[in-house]
């Protein structure tokens, strides 16, 4: 049976290849693919290439001098730059804290939204709202929440008899506030992906487990979690890549302060290119971030490949 299927498949592949080699079909394929290829060249390959090229130049708009090719000099400066290392560390720390954080909260939200509510739409809507809000808007809301005089967080702390915290004066508390805001904002997106994953698990599996004698906790670890793995990996990839690019929330909440304690790589790139107009160095930093994102993506895709 499967042998026959295999040989039929091989035959089909051979026929596909033969038709691909047919000159008229090749021309057709070329013209059909050309618009997409040109579009990708224009919006991805050209900007990335231009970025790498700029990173190899000394190009500062404040100096008034023309661009000068300096090779890897910008990268050498970067490796000696303590702010770069601080921003990189903050970025990695935000990723390490907020990605698992959002995954846990998102999983909880997805399990909640998957319960058989009589009316599902209010639950789904409340899951969607944080995801739909603009990032900078969330930053401003949370800056208000954590405001030391009038913020709701301090109000709650004091009602429980705890001391008031001046959140944005301390590097640790600032960082904590930012991470909480990011987790709140991003867990709904993770929740949506995991909810979609949960809904692909047939109900009869839980019924079989009920009959087999497994309790709710056991069902979660033996059925839900293993079958949710593909959705978890997808959520992790998306969430990690966006975490590495974190900008809006710390920018609107703390501007990277106090000092550089909450500055991220994306903010440092923004500062160099937009505020200091140092396009050469800014591009070198951007190339570093690009390499970091690509590296993480490759690792996840490898993991996913092994899962299959």
């Amino acid at each position, binding site marked *: 049976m499967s042998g026959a299927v295999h040989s039929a498949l091989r035959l089909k592949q051979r026929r596909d290849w033969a038709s691909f080699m047919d000159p008229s079909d090749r021309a057709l394929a070329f013209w059909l693919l050309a618009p997409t290829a040109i579009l990708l060249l224009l919006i991805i390959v050209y900007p990335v290439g231009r970025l790498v090229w700029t990173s190899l130049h000394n190009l500062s708009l404040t100096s008034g001098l023309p661009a000068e090719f300096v090779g890897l000099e910008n990268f050498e400066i970067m490796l000696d730059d303590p702010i770069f290392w601080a921003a990189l560390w903050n970025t990695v720390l935000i990723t390490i804290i907020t990605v698992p954080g959002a995954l846990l909260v998102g999983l909880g939200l997805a399990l909640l939204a998957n319960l058989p509510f009589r009316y599902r739409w209010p639950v789904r809507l409340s899951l969607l709202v944080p995801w739909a809000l603009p990032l900078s808007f969330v930053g401003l809301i949370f800056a208000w929440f954590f405001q030391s005089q009038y913020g709701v967080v301090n109000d709650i702390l004091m009602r429980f008899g705890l001391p008031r915290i001046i959140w944005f004066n301390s590097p640790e508390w600032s960082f904590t506030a930012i991470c909480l805001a990011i987790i709140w904002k991003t867990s709904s997106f993770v929740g949506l992906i995991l909810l979609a994953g949960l809904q692909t698990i047939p109900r009869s599996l839980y019924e079989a487990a*009920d009959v087999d004698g497994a309790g709710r906790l056991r069902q979660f670890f033996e059925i839900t979690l293993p079958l949710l793995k593909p959705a978890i990996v997808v959520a992790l990839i998306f969430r990690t890549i966006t975490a590495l690019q974190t900008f809006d929330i710390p920018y609107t909440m703390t501007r990277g302060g106090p000092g550089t304690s909450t500055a991220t790589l994306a903010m440092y790139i923004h500062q160099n290119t937009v505020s200091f107009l140092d396009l050469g160095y800014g591009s070198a930093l951007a190339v570093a971030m690009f390499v970091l994102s690509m590296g993480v993506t490759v690792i996840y895709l490898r993991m996913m490949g092994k899962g299959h």
Partner: protein
Amino acid sequence: MASVKLEGIRKSYGAVEVVKGIDLEVADKELVVLVGPSGCGKSTTLRMIAGLESITAGTLTIGDRTVNGLPPRERDIAMVFQDYALYPHKTVYENMAFGLKVRNHPRHEIDSRVKQAAETLGIAHLLDRKPSQLSGGQRQRVAMGRAIVRRPQVFLFDEPLSNLDAKLRGQVRTEIKKLHQDIAATIIYVTHDQVEAMTLADRIVVMRNGEIEQLGTPDDVYNTPATMFVASFIGAPAMNFLSATVSGGHARLAEGGRVPLGALAAILSDGDKVKVGIRPEHFLEESNGDCTVTGTVQVVEPLGADTLVHFTVGGETMTARVAAQTRPAPGTRVTLGCDPARIHIFDPVSERAYRPQAAQERHGSMAVEA
């Protein structure tokens, strides 16, 4: 093993009542089949026995325990699902062992039980595979294996063969019957397929609209159907029904046919309207004088072993199963006979079967009471 007793079992979803008071006693080691068209409440009844649906009213007893409020895991039942419900990420071995592992059976016992069940079902070579690597028939066996290893008091089967192709269905059906003989288990089996019901059951429960229409052995429901519904549901091709009028100890058909009423003549009077039921296989090719059915041939279907002749009698379509070599031409008139002992007479209004006095006593309330 244990008996199962349903007393006045009801199920409602809001205002809609889908199971309307089922009384049924399944004896220890008995195989009872619930059969009926989709929506008749048979699967809901089974799921209530399993504990997967709550019971709106009535009492459910397994062995000597009332289990109404107990969750599935405390009812000591095993279930084979229509879609098999195998855990896709677990191997066949792990699927079968799961129920025992959850109940903390020692490892060597799990191992020996799984391997023994796998041997019985002929799936010992598949233990390391995942369900996705199995054929439909193999998955079905794994689902049965998962039930068997548990050694529960009662096995529940929910349309277990409906996802298999016709040939495999026949094969697995035989295996289930053999399995029942080997392990002598109490089994409640749900199907919409009357052939499965007839071949497997010790007793058949024919359900319709959430109620039991008839309960009896396969021979009972085939030979003495209580209603026109049961008569048409059990047996393939279905029983033929003809409108007739009682006259002089016979039911007079259209186009000059007639059927003797026998003992029923005593309880029917001239002019009564009745429905005459004749199974396709109970027509005789020669009219025996007393029983004749005349009609016009429409279509002839040779099946090899025999031939189906579809013909019309006064506008009503009939089917007769005749000898293989009998091939009347379409459009011709045929006159067939019938065995008077295998004629069924129904009340056209209540659709219930008339029974001679003696038979009525024997078959009890089913035949006459509404």
